[in-house]
């Protein structure tokens, strides 16, 4: 149903998740969701649910690894941490994103085209 939406999000969602895990270390799903909401000042209307299939996909790709552990309030939670190939992916994704942003910026700022 909401497939189109998640498809669009997939690319950037992975980038956000990987960056969060890189800076904050191992984190559970809810923690990641909250962090995204905080970082985007709740501007991005994220259906928290869409996060989980994305996480599974990233696990399948080998970018994150998982481990069950205790949460801050002593509940069993699944923790995600970034792997080596996840870091590599993050680096190349980030570079991609910057290049893309630079290109888009030229169009947004028409004065520079000539």
């Amino acid at each position, binding site marked *: 149903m909401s497939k189109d939406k998640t498809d669009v999000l997939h690319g950037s969602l992975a980038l956000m998740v990987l960056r969060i895990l890189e800076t904050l270390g191992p984190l559970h799903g*809810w923690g990641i969701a909250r962090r995204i909401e905080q970082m985007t000042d709740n501007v991005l209307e994220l259906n928290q649910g869409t996060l989980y*299939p994305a996480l*599974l996909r990233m*696990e399948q*790709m080998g970018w994150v690894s998982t481990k069950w552990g205790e949460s801050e309030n002593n509940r*069993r939670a*699944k923790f995600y941490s970034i792997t080596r190939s996840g870091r590599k992916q993050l680096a190349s994704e980030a570079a991609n994103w910057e290049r893309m942003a630079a290109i888009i910026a030229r169009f947004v700022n028409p004065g520079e085209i000539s």
Partner: protein
Amino acid sequence: MTSLRVLLSRLVNLLRRGRMETDLDRELRFHLQMETDRLLQTGMTPEDARSAALKRFGGLAQTKEIYRATGGLPSIETILQDVHHAARSLRKQPGFTAIAILTLAVGIGANTAIYTVLDATMLRSLPFREPNRLMRISLVTPSRSDVPINDDSVWSYPKYELFRKLQQSFEDTALYRPGTFNLTGADDPELLQGELVSASYFPLLGIRAEIGRTFFPSEDETPGKDFVAVISHSLWVDRFGADPAIAGKTIVLNQRNVQRNYMVVGVMPAGFRALGGPADVWVPVHTDAARQLNEANLHSFEQVARLKPGVSIARAKAEVASLGPRIDDAFPGPAFAKGYGAKARTLDEARVDPLIRTSVLVLFGAVTLVLLIACANLANLLLARGSTRRREIAIRFAVGATKSRIVRYLLTESLLLAGLGAGASLALAYAGVFALNLINPVNGSTVTFGRRLSGLTILGLGSIHLDSRALFFTLAVALVTGVLFGLAPAFAGARTDVNDALKNGSARTSGIASFASKSLLVIAEVSLTMVLLAGAGLTLKSFERLIATRSGVDPENVLTVRVAFQGTRSQQFFDQLDRRVAALPGVLSAGLSDCPVLAGGCSSTSVGFPDRPPVPEDAAPLNIGVHWASPDYFKTMKIPLIRGRWFAASDRADSPKVVIIGETAARRYWPGEDPIGKPIALGCCGFGDKDGAVVIGIVGDVRFGQLDEPPQPDAYVSSLQSLNGMMLFVRAASNPLALTDAVRAEIHALDKDRPVYDVKSMRQRIADSTARARFIAILLPTFAAIAFALAGIGIYGVMSYMVRQRIREIGIRMALGARSQDVRSMVVLRAARLAAAGIVIGLAGALGAARVLGTLLYDVKPSDPRTYLLISALLVVLAALASYLPARRASKVDPCVTLRSE
């Protein structure tokens, strides 16, 4: 690399599916608790916090669905699930399922059965090394006013030799010519079908001997020097007890009345069939007499060649065509024998008689139409079913199924149906193949040595069977069918509006649009049926005319037996034979002639008239069929004498030569004259210019060629004055086949070394001669009948659906005073209108399709108006009948009940 990793992880998940589910549940529960806790701290009540958390999460069920889709193997897992659901839903409606499977079984079964014929005649590759590099090289006969051009004619040895020397396109070329051999020895004499072949024949085909060797080139260089033979596997087993030391042994063969010892040098592998049909013995071409090989205008050999690597078929064809005139120029000859060309075609093009090819293709087209009609019916059934299932589908949507998932589920159902139908169709196809073998169009011609169908049909047919290729075909058809009839209903299902369907529940809303699509399906069905009916009608009419055509003889209770001509003292033998057989109990009369009716391939020769001015040297000779008949032959076959007299026992070798002619010959060669007593000269058999032959009688015409060919001019000479290969005709008082043993014994009492073969009743021979026409005259109407029935079911289904949909409207009409007969005619007229639309569209298609049929029709025009009128009427009647029951149901509607019920 990554995708492999994903696949592995998915496979692991599939194996520990339960574990994945509980993990996911725990993880999501944890998430919701954390979110709820967080919201509680903002001052919400527990209930509000809980529902806000759920809302922020988005659809829990959808998430799980997507998660499962990502985690598991959707292809395997959901398919199993879909198949399971589909099977359950099909079981719930056994009536619907049975009709669907039966429809499919008929449609697919007919396709598989005809596919086996197509495969055997055209598709299966020929059993030679690289068969697609093999080509058949033919001569093209000169254009003449009285004889049509034959572009697949045979070679003379000198022309072949020249061709072989000039050509650049082929690695090698080979010659072959069918012949009959009388094998004598310790056992009963046996007449063998064989081939004279060039030494290059076996290497070119890529066939090695199973035992021993094939021919050395040196054994095929000098006429009448080396008498060597290769024999078939079955002859080796049956006649020589699979003797491992057969190579080097001697056998006695009689060919063209010359008896010789041949040394066996090799045995062919089992199952090898020669290019000229089944054969048991092969000898080199040069065992033939020198005069057979030196005469440039004695055409009797067929030629096959293997392309050089890198040479295209088109280039080879062009080269052969350009060599034609050069070869023709190289040999002197009378003007009428000049102007030959040459033509090459691939062995695949040449393998099947063009008429049989057309028949098989027409039938394949017909079964495809039947299958399409079956698909239309099923699509209709599924659409009707779909509208009653909107609730079920809406619920699936509501609990998180995606559109593609619904389409996949509905398609799975269609494919499951198609699979079940295909399974059931195999039983039908098996029966069909059995029946096809019984009416195999080449059955008749595999045994007649005199004539064969053109092409290499015999190679393929006779081996129609269900094999792995046919099974694969069935599978493919089932798949295509399932998608074809399932796609529209599946997408219609996926368009279901959840709210609307759940609120209304009934099937009311989608009515108009889907009735339109159903009407279109009915129109399509009727028009396809029209095409099939037209084909069937024309074929039946043509066949009816064919079998009503008189052959010119009375075939009732006649036994026909071939007696080998090869032998000693033939004249005495045959002189006594018919008299001795006529004396057998149960025999009314017996006669001899060289050639049966309707078999083709009888001898013909030139005819001249010594009492007229001589024709110029260069003029093409006039042709006449020539037959050697004993005095009692005409009486035995009941050929009527029109004028003059019969042959008499007194017309002997030393008395004046006498000739009887047929009516067509009398009309054509003596227009406005009385031929009786006129001199005649034949180009054969000692009846030349100076022999003083005279016409003594005129008999009724006999069709020696085929039933659908008009009688040709024919002449008969007395077997007491001249002799050729002979056949015995016996008129019995009752069942002629019962006389077989007595006749055989009588023949062997006269000469124990003379094989008797090809024993058949005259009725059987006539049936054989119409085998091809009957093949299509049985099958096409059968398929048309199936299509007709399916179209009837289709119309019935749609009209019932319409009545159900419009029951309210009908109720209102009746409340307003419509009489039940108005309602009835409304429904029937509606059906008739659909049928009429189908007929109009079908007419265009039918006229087009009939043109393809044209070459198969006898005495019927493809546009025969009466046929089209009749089948149009039939279809209208069908529509009226099929809609009558729904119409009656509509007219029984009680306005009070229907109006209250909604």
